[in-house]
């Protein structure tokens, strides 16, 4: 070995390093996706439902549907 020696490679702790990397990564990815879903999907959906039902009048909706003629048991015109 007359040429310059290569630097000594990492001999110990290889599994520990890999495990640490993957443990942190797994934690970050799973928590991150959970947080993203909560604030990207779940919270907006809850807000949308709250907003919809805050001033919802079911009778008005019923009259609108009846007028449009989609309710078989509540026809728009009085048949009898």
């Amino acid at each position, binding site marked *: *070995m*007359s*040429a310059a020696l290569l630097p000594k490679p990492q001999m110990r702790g290889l599994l520990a390093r890999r495990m640490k990397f993957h443990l942190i990564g797994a934690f970050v990815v799973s928590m991150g996706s959970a947080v993203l879903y909560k604030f990207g999907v779940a919270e907006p*959906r809850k807000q*949308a*439902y709250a907003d*919809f039902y805050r001033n919802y009048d079911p009778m008005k*909706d019923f009259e*609108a*549907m009846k007028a*449009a*003629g*989609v309710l078989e048991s509540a026809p728009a015109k009085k048949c009898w």
Partner: protein
Amino acid sequence: MLASRVFSLVGRRSISTSLCLRAHGHGVVKAEDYTLPVYVDRRDVPLPEVAFVRDLSAQQRALKEKEKASWSALSAEEKVELYRIKFNESYAEMKKGTNEWKTILGGVLFFLGLTGVILIWQKHFMYGAVPHTFSDEWLSAQTKRMLDMRVNPVQGITAQWDFDKNEWKK
């Protein structure tokens, strides 16, 4: 061997076949290649059970003799030659990537394209007309009925319709 010679003195008929075979060196089954330990190039097996080169040339045998003496007497090339006798690929060579992914990706895309061609051919030459319920008139009547029924009013289709202006919400 001695036993078979003794038996021949006693009587020829008492020699068993397997004993005769053993006398001539046929009794032991020759070890097949696949039953012997093998050399592997694997990252998790740093020292395989056998050396890579099984039958050494005269030159290599001389080198192996030289290896038994002091190692500082060996030149760098001789050390590399000894390494290559023992191992096939170094770790660097083992871990080196190939360009195989390009072939695989190319093959996958090619067959996807081929499938697309087949599907287009089928739509053009083989399939009949779609049902009348896919016509524009039917679809608009269908959508109007869905809106009248207030389908999915919170986040779905009815939520996108503006009932006052009678048009889709911007």
